């Protein structure tokens, strides 16, 4: 089933290329900021389409985006957030599952590939290549990576306007990111020797495939229903 939100996003990406550099920067900050809110994802993409349209028409009238939405972009976005449709509980759960399946899946696949390379380089191609040791290092870094990814996303989206303008915010972002990256590296280094359990790599792969199919079908169906009734 095609996802109509993806189609809309592709259309928006294409239209956005016609924007001036300045309008493009402003619009990106606005959309990133809107993503920090609890506005419905599909509605944000619709708002993006409308704002691109307004900006393009303003360009044709030889005006900037600021003459259309005012100088205070954050206040304009706050008005949209206040007045727009909020995510339902079902949409929040779907989004959470999406992050778990794709974010968690990526971390598991990294672990599986790393383990296969290590086993093959030490023992050659044996049956033990299918064994995946789950260490405390992996569990700690897995939880931290998910939490920090969420933290970084929240920080970037809530501070999108400041990150474009303020060097302090950029500095804080880089320092924070480095601390997280080094912290995860240390947790792997110190805790990887403590093995909780060893599982067959086919188990997480099977769980991921089932999770992926279920989340994709539910998500696409919901977004298409929204697109039809919008």
């Amino acid at each position, binding site marked *: 089933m095609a996802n109509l939100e993806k189609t809309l996003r592709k259309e928006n990406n294409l239209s956005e290329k016609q924007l001036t550099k300045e309008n493009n920067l402003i619009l990106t900050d606005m959309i990133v900021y809107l993503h920090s809110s609890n506005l419905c994802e599909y509605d944000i993409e619709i708002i993006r389409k409308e704002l691109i349209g307004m900006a393009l028409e303003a360009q*044709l009238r030889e005006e900037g985006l600021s003459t259309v939405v005012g100088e205070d972009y954050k206040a304009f976005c706050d008005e949209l957030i206040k007045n727009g449709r909020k995510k339902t509980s079902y949409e929040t759960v779907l989004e959470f599952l999406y992050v778990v399946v794709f974010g968690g899946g990526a971390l598991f696949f990294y672990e599986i590939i790393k383990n296969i390379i290590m086993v093959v380089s030490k023992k050659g191609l044996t049956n033990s290549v299918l064994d995946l040791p789950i260490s405390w290092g992996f569990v700690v870094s897995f939880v931290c990576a998910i939490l920090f990814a969420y933290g970084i996303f929240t920080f970037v989206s809530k501070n999108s306007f400041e990150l474009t303008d303020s060097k302090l915010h950029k500095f804080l972002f880089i320092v924070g990111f480095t601390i997280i990256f080094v912290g995860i590296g240390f947790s792997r280094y110190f805790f990887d020797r403590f093995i909780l359990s060893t599982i067959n790599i086919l188990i997480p792969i099977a769980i991921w495939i089932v999770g992926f199919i279920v989340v994709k079908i539910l998500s696409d169906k919901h977004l298409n229903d929204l697109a039809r009734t919008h």
Partner: protein
Amino acid sequence: MFDKSQLMRGTLEGCILKVIFSEVTYGYEIMEKLKSFGFSDISEGTIYPLLVRLEKKALISSEFRPSPLGPNRKYYFITGDGEDMLHLFEEYWSSLSQTVNRILNLGEN
């Protein structure tokens, strides 16, 4: 200092409903029409969040249509609930404006 925005917000919603009731139209045209009637301070940025709000409350609906200028425009229509709300607004505004005018005329006669 007198805060115009609080008074404007509710009034503008009613006026936007009236403009959309009179013809199917899009954001920029709504703004131009409101300006031509004397709302000189407003921009598309003022009315767009209100259009989002009216649409969320199902008082208006919309569809994208091609524009001669290039990008598709979102055209707005009034719904049945929107018409009911507009009539209520017209009645209330008529009564409110008479009341406020009487008060503001106090001591002038």
